[in-house]
């Protein structure tokens, strides 16, 4: 580890901190329908969407909100599926790529609809420009906006003063979706897209370039409208790369500045939303407590990853006596180095982005454990756009339930009593996550069609399969790689896992929102559990880590943990 590396990490933290308040406050004004400076220049667009869609903007119950979200997602998923299957008949296909195979098209449609952006295919080799832009790029916007919508709906449920007579309303899905897209995602993408172009990210619709290499060989260099996708890929924590190499590709992520900006964009909205929530709750300090818990988990993760990668492979360093030098550079871009690669890996897995600038598969056992465990914490360390906040709020509800009892009161969160129904729904939410991951992974490791495309044996192979399903259910989308995921089994199983990880968790979250929205809130007093300040943040961290660790520790010990001990003993896979 070097001072330079730590400076990069700390500089990144400072930048995240700096954008949290302005972006959070802006999103608060946008999402709650207050005045803001973009209302004049872009208001027409919002009104146009409403007129075209016949949106009245009436308040919805949680059921109506869920139905709108599910119907919208189903429809857009279908469109993306159709586009891929028919791309050979449609324009903007200069490479004359054929129709995408059914299982792969299902997987990709599910992947982009759920904000996962897992890619079982190589983008430049299988998708036409039209499929990339019309099929995928817009999902980057709307799946992110849908995440924000769910988060703000749950936030409303927690902060609205109910009448105590049955469930309340939680806003309007179409309005939330439109506002998040028009005022937050689009303007930021326009401005920053130009910045990315200025740094050398390509943006064109020309055919791939045939180049002659120095050795005299022929190389086909992929082209395409990359910059316009690059910003939303990060900002919407989508992570689906235009190129197969994702952010390790020089056309996607050419230099240190774009790399830094990319990471900042990943954390910007999730971090800002904690402040938005604080404003909605009328208690900014509570928002900071959530931020603090996330920041602590993030720093812990990045420290371990950086330490493990900088130390290099224990087998090589300890057994062969080779100096660590730069550290474990295998699978990392030289232009980013150890610190920026470890940082990027932590950021992209903490937030459910999944863009990568290095190969997580090539990390040391412990270094690779960090991205894996980050996702297994439930994507709440800043987390996906919106998804991070609603996941964190569900964890907060559970924390409050256990800790609230310890202060001798029926647990309450922001003054709302947490009772059987909320606990039931919150448990359902946390239950689905390990259920889908573990069942699919366990299934895959014992069947021939699960193992046939595996490139590595032993604990490392287990980690690869576990990582794939963890990434899918967590809607992260990054890959440990090392398995050929473009098979019928993995395309189908991972596609289902993504849909379950997204929608089976969103519906309980919205149900909690609706039920809590109708509840009366009692004002906080010295006898109520304090939900701001370091004590609450520490409690939250404790619950998140213990729930995550207790659930996944057995399988992790058979994967990365045992791999680490084997590496110490000189056995590698």
């Amino acid at each position: 580890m070097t001072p330079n590396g730590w400076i990069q990490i700390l500089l990144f933290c400072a930048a995240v901190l700096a954008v949290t308040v302005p972006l959070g406050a802006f999103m608060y004004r946008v999402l709650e329908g207050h005045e803001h400076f973009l209302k004049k220049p872009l208001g027409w667009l919002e009104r146009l969407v409403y007129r075209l869609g016949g949106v009245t903007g009436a308040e919805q119950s949680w059921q109506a909100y869920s139905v709108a979200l599910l119907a919208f997602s189903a429809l857009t998923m279908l469109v993306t599926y159709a586009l891929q299957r028919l791309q050979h008949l449609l324009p903007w296909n200069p490479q004359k790529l054929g129709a995408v195979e059914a299982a792969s098209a299902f997987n990709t449609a599910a992947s982009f609809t759920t904000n996962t952006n897992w890619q079982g295919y190589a983008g430049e080799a299988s998708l036409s420009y039209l499929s990339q832009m019309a099929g995928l790029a817009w999902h980057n916007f709307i799946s992110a906006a849908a995440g924000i919508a769910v988060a703000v709906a749950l936030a409303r449920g927690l902060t609205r003063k109910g009448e105590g007579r049955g469930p309340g309303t939680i806003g309007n899905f179409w309005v939330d979706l439109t506002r998040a897209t028009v005022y937050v995602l689009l303007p930021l993408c326009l401005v920053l897209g130009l910045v990315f172009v200025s740094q050398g990210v390509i943006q064109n619709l020309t055919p791939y370039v045939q180049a002659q290499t120095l050795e005299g060989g022929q190389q086909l260099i992929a082209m395409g409208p990359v910059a316009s996708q690059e910003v939303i890929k990060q900002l919407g924590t989508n992570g689906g790369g235009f190129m197969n190499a994702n952010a390790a590709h020089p056309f996607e992520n050419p230099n240190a500045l774009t790399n830094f900006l990319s990471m900042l964009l990943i954390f910007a909205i999730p971090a800002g939303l904690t402040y938005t929530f604080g404003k909605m709750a009328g208690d900014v300090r509570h928002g900071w407590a959530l931020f603090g818990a996330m920041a602590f988990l993030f720093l812990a993760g990045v420290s371990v990853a950086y330490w493990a990668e900088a130390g290099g492979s224990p087998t090589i360093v300890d057994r062969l006596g080779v100096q660590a030098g730069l550290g474990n550079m295998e699978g990392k871009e030289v232009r980013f180095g150890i610190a920026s690669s470890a940082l990027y890996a932590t950021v992209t897995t903490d937030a459910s982005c999944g863009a990568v600038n290095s190969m997580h598969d090539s990390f040391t056992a412990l270094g690779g454990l960090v991205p894996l465990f980050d996702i297994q914490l439930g994507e709440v360390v800043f987390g996906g756009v919106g998804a991070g906040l609603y996941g964190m709020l569900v964890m907060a509800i559970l924390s409050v339930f256990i800790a609230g009892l310890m202060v001798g009161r029926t647990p309450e969160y922001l003054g709302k009593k947490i009772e059987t129904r909320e606990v039931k729904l919150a448990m359902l939410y946390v239950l689905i996550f390990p259920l889908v991951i573990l069942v699919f992974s366990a299934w895959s490791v014992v069947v021939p069609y699960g193992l046939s495309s595996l490139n590595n044996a032993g604990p490392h192979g287990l980690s690869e399969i576990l990582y794939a399903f963890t990434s899918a259910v967590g809607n992260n989308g990054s890959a440990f790689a090392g398995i050929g995921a473009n098979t019928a089994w993995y395309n189908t199983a991972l596609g289902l896992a993504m849909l379950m990880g997204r929608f089976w968790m969103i519906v309980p979250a919205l149900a909690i929102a609706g039920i809590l929205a109708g509840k009366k809130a009692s004002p906080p007093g010295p006898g109520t559990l304090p939900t701001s300040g370091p004590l609450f943040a520490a409690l939250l961290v404790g619950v998140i880590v213990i729930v995550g660790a207790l659930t996944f520790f057995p399988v992790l010990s058979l994967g990365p943990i045992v791999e680490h001990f084997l590496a110490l003993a000189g056995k590698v896979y």
Partner: protein
Amino acid sequence: MSHVKAVSAWEAGILRAALLDALRKLDPRLMARNPVMFVVEVGSVLTTLLWLRDLLLRPVASEPLWFTGQVSLWLWFTVLFANFAEALAEGRGKAQAAALRGLRAETVARRLVDGREQPTPASGLRKGDLVVVEAGQVVPGDGEVVEGIASVDESAVTGESAPVIRESGGDRSAVTGGTKVLSDRVVVRIGVDPGQSFLDRMIGLVEGAKRQKTPNEIALHVLLSGMTIIFLIACVTLVPFGLYSGLSFTVTAVVALLVCLIPTTIGGLLSAIGIAGMDRLIRHNVIPMSGRAVEAAGDVDTILLDKTGTITLGNRMASEFLPAPGAKVEELADAAQLASLADETPEGRSIVVLAKERHGLRGRELKRPEAHFVAFSAQTRMSGCDIDGRVIRKGAADAIAAHVSRLGGRVPVLVEQAVKAVAQSGGTPLVVSDGPRVLGVVHLKDIVKGGLKERFAKFRAMGLRTVMITGDNPLTAASIAAEAGVDDFMAEATPEMKLRLIREEQAKGKLVAMTGDGTNDAPALAQADVAIAMNSGTQAAREAGNMVDLDSNPTKLLEVVEVGKQLLMTRGCLTTFSIANDVAKYFAILPALFMAVFPEIAPLNVMGLASPRSAILSAVVFNALVIVALIPLALRGVRYRPLGAAALLRRSLLVYGLGGVVVPFVGIKAVDVVLAAVGLV
């Protein structure tokens, strides 16, 4: 306290009964009520079957008999210990219920039918029946006195040996079945149908027979069941993950891991905690009508306290003589005493006593025929005596002013000022006159009960707001409120205002607790979230409340709140402890499971346990023993300290969270050492 008294859980009889009950509770239909322990029971059955299979068929690749046998044995112990805890908590209630049931001895009631008495068995009485009860007879059922007045010995129900007066009309008309009339004759209208009486309900409650899970208990059960499912998935999927890694786990080992991970500690003690919480209230002589009310007590934000009887002693006491200009204080005291000699009210007596204590004036024999006493009347609002030609009066300032002006005197300015000063300080001024001459003012003061200020301060620290309710004027109220240290007061209160105050507080999302005894308290009691009716109160009040205080002591509210909080805290602390325990159990069992194929994982065996089988067994044994070790805590409840929520949380997290992580490391290692030493592994 006599009948509803503390029965120690550790009496031999109760212990024996609880052990039997623990076995009886193994019935899977009963166990299914508690999902966590049900899983353990299924695990016990499974391992027992495996052990039998191995014993009879001796298959090759399996755990040795001694290992499966011991694991299975300790799993059964885990279930039994949990059942034992519940049975023990119930046992105390059962002993109390048996004592109460003795009171229900069949009596023959004298039912009035068309004005004539007709002997009817008490169990045949229905709501609305009229019965006659005379001195020496037992009241046959709950009801209301509609005719007559009698002294009643209620010690059978309340434990209070001094008899109480019950009379028709007013707030002291309710009688309870099983109590004994000591004097006179009353007619009682029966208020309940058979099986519904107060005594019946009390028996049902203390026995726990009709015990339903309370809302928070259900929510906690949901959480624990959810965690059980998560661990079930984690353990079951570990089998294929193991197969992939070349490990084949035995069912015994997986079951052992599962049982150690699921929250058996809290799962096993949860219902005992709830029953014990009810029991603690009953030992304070408060009968909760539902478990829900006990939980709500922990959540109370605002406490409404009647001034009289709760904050102040029932009566005002003379505290000072303030002579008028030109009058001596002895002269005033003497006149005041003369005016009060025949005044049997506590205020009157306190004047006599004060005069005696301060000025050595002995109570004089006043049976002299020339003394003529004038009793207080609502018209004159004065009392006093005519003696030796003197006309001595005491009364309210305006009444005396009118009286002396009729006799040609007037009230001196300084006396008027003294009257005002006394009123402002929260006292009641009584002016004393001798003929047309005003002698001065007697300061009657509300006496605030001792120790209340400290208690209210404690409650403030807990985040509870106390509001004093009084019919006094705002000045008086403010002064007493300040002296008692309550947070707020409501002066010149009427029952309607009380009800409105409760609704307002509830609209702000607060939970309100109050006590009451009168019929006019009933609407407010019904509205309040925690309503304690005094046992001495009317039937209406007792039905509106959700708890009954047998001692009729309004300050009991404070204990009730503490018990409620203690109940919730005990649940929270043991849940935290239970979950935190899992960390150590992982470090015990996982390395043991993986060691066969991955000996390199040995450093994870941080406790240095003797062998893989010893590690698993030690964790299972520790898991069972910790339930037994925590039974006393579950029954007693964690200690409650009146601190703010933040301080409480920090403390509990440290003790039960951090402690929960550390303790099992030590415990499992200790069990391992013992098992190895004894040669069981």
